[in-house]
């Protein structure tokens, strides 16, 4: 696979973790309880760790012409390939959990298959990450069940969040050009084939949570092609602030 295409593919994968990691990181000091605050920021750190592995690999493929920081902090909004789902804001704890839940179930299936990639580095990153993501999936699914099968108020709030975010789930299974190219070369995952299992797994948890699985005909898409909702710009201005104010700063 052409190195430039492979870098595009890596961005498509890693940007999901990067943007979701930033959203979860926003909860630092703001979680509903100290324990849940730490859990959410742990998830954020797991995701950033994965992003570093991906971007270090991309930097290496570019012969260090671009750095991991360039990729994370110095791209324009239209260059980010993350799905719209992960950039949706932390409206309340139900939204935080629903977004995480809808992404984790996809992420887990995706990594399960990425472990078989013919690209050894990507396969190794997937192998390392899948243990973390298994835990994320367990955490978010448990909370879906707690809130759904909880009080009348918690049930109403989590159902609203799931209903609202459902319109962003279809995009997870619609490959962009980089994903199509990577799949043809047996480097990428055939994401179309993941949808049936995803719907089944998510449905099982929603059922246990006594929630209704939304039935939608129209879905939002665009993130993978760089066309984002109005929320991403604000997230990026926050996330990129340090690197843009103090160019080339390092920890």
């Amino acid at each position: 696979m052409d190195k430039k295409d492979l870098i595009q593919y890596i961005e498509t994968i890693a940007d999901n973790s990067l943007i979701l990691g930033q959203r979860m990181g926003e909860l630092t000091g703001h979680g509903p309880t100290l324990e849940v605050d730490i859990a959410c920021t742990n998830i954020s750190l797991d995701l950033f760790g994965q992003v570093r592995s991906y971007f270090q690999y991309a930097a290496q493929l570019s012969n260090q012409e671009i750095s991991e920081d360039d990729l994370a902090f110095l791209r324009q909004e239209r260059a980010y390939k993350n799905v719209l789902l992960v950039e949706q804001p932390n409206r309340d704890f139900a939204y935080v959990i629903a977004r995480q839940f809808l992404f984790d179930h996809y992420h887990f299936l995706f990594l399960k298959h990425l472990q078989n990639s013919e690209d050894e580095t990507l396969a190794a990153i997937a192998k390392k990450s899948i243990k973390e993501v298994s835990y994320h999936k367990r955490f978010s699914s448990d909370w879906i069940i707690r809130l759904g099968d909880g009080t009348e108020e918690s049930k109403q709030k989590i159902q609203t969040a799931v209903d609202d975010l459902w319109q962003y789930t279809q995009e997870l299974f619609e490959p962009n050009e980089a994903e199509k190219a990577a799949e043809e070369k047996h480097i990428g995952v055939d994401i179309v084939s993941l949808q049936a299992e995803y719907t089944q797994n998510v449905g099982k948890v929603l059922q246990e949570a006594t929630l209704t699985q939304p039935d939608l005909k129209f879905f939002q898409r665009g993130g993978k092609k760089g066309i984002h909702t109005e929320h991403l710009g604000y997230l990026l201005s926050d996330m990129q602030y340090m690197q843009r104010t103090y160019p080339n700063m390092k920890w």
Partner: protein
Amino acid sequence: MGNKKEWPLWEVFVRSKNGLEHRHFGSLHAADAEMALENARDVYTRRSEGVSIWVVESEHITASNPEHNGELFEPAQDKVYRHPTFYDLPDEVKHM
């Protein structure tokens, strides 16, 4: 959480290595045992401190009364012969 009822307190015990005993690490709030385990995992083992976690609701622990410390503990202070300090421990014995 506002005016909501607070989650009960749980005590967390972590075994840091196989072969060692569980030690008290601290406490946390959780709605039930399952959540207490997950919270303990996130709060106390995120720097790979453990291989096993026990949690127990704090109200199930019966504690000695500090006012009774005199009669409970002080009589032992002048009985040095009860301490295992009068023989040499072989190097092979670990974790004593």
